[in-house]
């Protein structure tokens, strides 16, 4: 895979993302729709990102590794690190304008649009991960359980993933 293309793909996703996982729809367009990675690999990368250390958004590094080994991971990491630095030169301008209508409207509009895209991508990924016949009933139940437990924020993400793993071992091996 061409390193220049790989870097630009991650940089674009990083620049246009608001918050941790909102680059996912763009990366899915670039990697899954071109056949470079599968939906299952994308979910694996998100899972690894949740289990790993550091800020959210490092799932891009896992995707980079899957697409281009250590070079891909390094390029993804650079792409994650560079765009936020743009806040430094504009911070002096923005500090007194944090309450400005157009500024908070811009952030609100971006956040709503990217969140809508993340929801659409999540549902697409569920179908992609469910196999040729789509997700099983118990997998829908796990989506609901993951949603409810994560919403309550009482269990650490690692525990939630562990519970999903146990459920998978129990139900998938019976199918």
């Amino acid at each position, binding site marked *: 895979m061409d390193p220049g293309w790989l870097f630009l793909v991650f940089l674009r996703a990083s*620049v*246009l*993302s608001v*918050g*941790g996982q909102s680059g996912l*729809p763009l990366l899915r*367009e670039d990697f899954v*729709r071109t056949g470079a990675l599968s939906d*299952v690999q994308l979910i*694996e*990368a*998100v899972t*690894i990102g949740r289990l*790993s*250390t*550091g*800020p*959210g*958004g*490092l799932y891009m*590094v896992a995707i980079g*590794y*899957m697409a281009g080994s250590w070079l891909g*991971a390094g390029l993804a990491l650079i792409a994650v*690190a*560079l765009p*936020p630095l743009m*806040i*430094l030169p504009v*911070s002096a301008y923005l*500090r007194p304008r*944090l*309450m400005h*209508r157009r500024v*908070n409207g811009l*952030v*609100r*509009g*971006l*956040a*709503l*649009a*990217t*969140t*809508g*895209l993340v*929801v659409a*991508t999540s549902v697409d990924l*569920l179908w992609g991960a469910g196999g040729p016949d789509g997700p099983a009933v118990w*997998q829908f139940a*796990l989506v609901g359980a993951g*949603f409810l437990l994560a*919403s309550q924020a009482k269990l650490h993400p690692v525990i*939630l993933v562990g519970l*999903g*793993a146990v*459920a*998978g071992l*129990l*139900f998938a091996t019976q199918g």
Partner: protein
Amino acid sequence: MDRSLREAEAEALAGDLGRTPSAPPSTREQLREWVVIGTTSVGGGPSTLYMLRSVLVGRRGWLTMREFVQDWTLSRLSIGNHLAGLAALIGQRIGGRRGVVVAVAGLLIPAGTITALMAGGFGLIRDQPAIQATLAGVAPVTIGMMLAISAMLIRTITGPRSWSLVLDLVVFLLAAAAGFLVTGSTILVIISGAVIGVLFLGRDDVPPETVEG
């Protein structure tokens, strides 16, 4: 955002939660703490934010709570990863340009290396039948978690007044529908969201929060 940070933000924006920070730390000290934060916060943004506050404000006293909350508020306007933006702002405050490099590199490089190692290790075992069965359960839980984060984000950014709440939800639902129905529409949806936000979604209150995944 937890309650104490929300209260602190309001106080910081109002102007008074300062205390005198201690002397500027050495580059080595800064690097050590950023690496500690990057490698011991597990599970994403909230955990990292907690570590940043607890280590840099609480334990080391390198910046005041007021400064931390101001930088955190500002970082929510950064493009890309907000916590990397926050690290850059705090790093600049603590150590100037060198502090920025130390902060962003210390936070991201070790954590990114761990993530890549996990991806590599996983690649070695992913075809095992037991791992495939495990993934069949992990994938839907992860998707449920993604949806929960999205719901939290929607709850925190939608407006309190009825008309603005409806407008926010319409923008969100249109974006989701476009994501479902129109292949390759992602960038168009993001740009449209930004334009609609500037024109119609601005409010005279604190900036909207975003949730770090």
